[in-house]
């Protein structure tokens, strides 16, 4: 009976979302209650699963009881349990904020789409089958198309078209990659793939190398690595910002998939695909970090500022992943938690600013609650830029420490440090214009053009539920503080996770062994 909990993070939203659409479509209050309760339950289930696997067991769940290489299998190890719990930990505050700020009222079906999105994300983290990964990618993308254009508006719809086109291309590429890999190996179960790829003759590697690179491209698109990041700033900046906060987990799906596939299937020691991933990913990750930081410095609107900060954060994460050592992967696991929570928090804070005074970073009269929001922005900027005392600093330190053994640590260190400085300057510039110049009456500027799309319907002052909205941000910041204070235990867990990732035999044995225990 207890084994069925593995599938619960997928099934729960999958049942809840149609229920919300079909039964309580016209009752916003009921929708809110069910949606929040479901997301809270998801968080609890995620934490329970995390505790269950924290001793290092790997659990599998065979859908329809089909044995492993033939049926679809869900696999719960430390990394996937952590990611599921993280999804819940991000989704609950974001949902509280969306309810509190009234965003869920500005279009239809927000809560149903939100639950479908959660279903896709948790499914992508749990699945042990490459084609099933594609299907869950599609589930989360379909939901994200709806969420992205939630509330409508000219710019948002145009950005939505771009976003859908880009992701459809990514999906097509994913199918090409899977077809290539299937043609070579004859399987798509990840554990089975790992075995078959290891047995392939080394002199006949052209096709599998093509497949591995195509797959890396797909995941790089999802994670917004530099040459493939163009979709992110426009999409995130024009999406409703609470939705962009939820999308913080979506770039992490790409990072997770890279970490999973390229330690399990195409592991770094494999001669067949040697030199494919690490050699290319590290420079791309460094460029991503640099471009993101420069974007933070140059952004004119607060949504874009946060979008570029998210790109920079992904860059740091991918630096850690692309080193492909156990220590670096442990740092990546720690940083992935920090980066998700911090990105979510800053997008929510950006939305508070945007709701009250518009998105442009120019001096305007003070907004309500400016002091509180300014201090929240300050905390969020510290977390994103990686300054002490918050967990971004710990994360960056761990990444840099892991890079110390590598050949080109000078390059990695200088890029990380320089881009941190640039990001700090960018955040400080935006923050001082937003919060300080508003008190200086000589510097007030008129907005260049009214934000006709950002404020759809006549919205009453955000007072009624703003306590709920603030609680979402506070929850995320509290989680960041907890991650800092408990950095020791968190890091021990991250090290154990990395150790598990680098002994793929355990994973393969758990999936292909005698199946479910």
């Amino acid at each position, binding site marked *: 009976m207890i084994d069925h909990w593995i599938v619960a993070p997928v099934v729960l939203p999958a049942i809840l979302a149609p229920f919300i659409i079909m039964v309580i479509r016209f009752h916003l209050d009921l929708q809110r209650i069910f949606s929040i309760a479901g997301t809270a339950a998801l968080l609890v289930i995620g934490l329970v699963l995390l505790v269950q696997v924290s001793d290092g067991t790997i659990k599998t769940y065979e859908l329809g009881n089909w044995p492993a290489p033939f049926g679809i299998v869900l696999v719960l190890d430390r990394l996937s349990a952590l990611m599921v719990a993280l999804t819940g930990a991000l989704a609950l505050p974001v949902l509280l904020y969306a309810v509190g700020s009234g965003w869920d009222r500005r279009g239809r079906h927000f809560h149903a789409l939100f639950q479908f999105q959660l279903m896709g994300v948790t499914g992508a983290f749990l699945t042990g089958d490459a*084609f099933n990964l594609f299907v869950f990618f599609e589930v989360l993308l379909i939901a994200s198309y709806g969420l992205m254009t939630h509330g409508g508006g000219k710019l948002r*719809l145009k*950005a*939505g078209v771009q976003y859908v086109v880009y992701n459809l291309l990514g999906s097509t590429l994913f199918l*090409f990659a899977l077809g290539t890999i*299937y043609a070579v190996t004859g399987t798509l179960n990840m554990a089975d793939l790992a075995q078959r790829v290891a047995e392939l003759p080394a002199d006949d590697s052209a096709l599998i190398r093509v497949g591995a690179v195509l797959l890396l491209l797909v995941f790089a698109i999802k994670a917004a690595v530099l040459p493939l990041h163009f979709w992110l700033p*426009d999409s995130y900046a024009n999406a409703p910002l609470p939705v962009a906060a939820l999308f913080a987990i979506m770039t992490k799906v790409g990072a997770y998939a890279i970490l999973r596939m390229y330690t399990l299937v195409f592991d770094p020691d494999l001669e067949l695909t040697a030199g494919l991933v690490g050699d290319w990913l590290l420079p791309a990750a460094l460029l991503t970090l640099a471009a993101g930081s420069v974007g933070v410095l140059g952004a004119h609107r607060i949504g*874009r*500022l946060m979008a570029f900060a998210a790109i920079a954060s992904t860059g740091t994460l991918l630096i850690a992943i692309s080193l492909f050592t156990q220590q670096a992967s442990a740092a990546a696991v720690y940083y992935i938690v920090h980066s998700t929570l911090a990105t979510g928090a800053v997008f929510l804070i950006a939305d508070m600013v945007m709701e009250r005074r518009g998105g442009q970073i120019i001096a305007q009269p003070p907004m309500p609650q400016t002091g509180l929001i300014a201090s929240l922005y300050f905390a969020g900027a510290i977390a994103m830029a990686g300054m002490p005392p918050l967990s971004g600093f710990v994360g960056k330190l761990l990444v840099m420490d892991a890079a110390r053994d590598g050949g080109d640590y000078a390059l990695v260190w200088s890029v990380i440090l320089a881009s941190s400085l640039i990001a700090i300057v960018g955040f400080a510039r935006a923050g001082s214009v937003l919060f300080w110049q508003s008190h200086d009456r000589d510097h007030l500027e008129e907005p*260049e053009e009214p934000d006709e799309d950002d404020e759809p319907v006549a919205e009453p002052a955000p007072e009624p539920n703003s306590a709920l909205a603030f609680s979402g941000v506070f929850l995320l910041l509290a989680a960041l503080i907890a991650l800092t204070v408990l950095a020791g235990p968190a890091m021990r867990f991250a090290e154990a996770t990395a150790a598990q990732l680098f002994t793929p035999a355990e994973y393969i044995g758990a999936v292909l062994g005698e199946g479910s225990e």
Partner: protein
Amino acid sequence: MELLLATAVGVLTASGIYLILRKRTFPVILGLSQLTYAVNVFLFASGRLAVNAPPVLNKYADVAYTDPLPQALVLTAIVISFGMTAVIVMLALAAYLSSRSDRIDMGPAPGDDA
């Protein structure tokens, strides 16, 4: 047979990529659907080409069979790409009707140059 199939995939992919590089939404959507056709045919080929062979094993006779899994994959891919094309057509229509322009790029909006 193999040559024909490979050429078809190649031509569909090439024309699809050409079309998605256009700057109006309609050719881009056409290009996307050509790409999905290409990938569907490609997925079929990933299970090796066998003509007139059933996708089931026959344990009483040693007859040719074709791999059933790519067919299942193609079916999933067709359903997903069909739904996606519908979504993007609707979205493109909504974007066109609200902004009276079907350009795919965001265009130079003031304050948007970051």
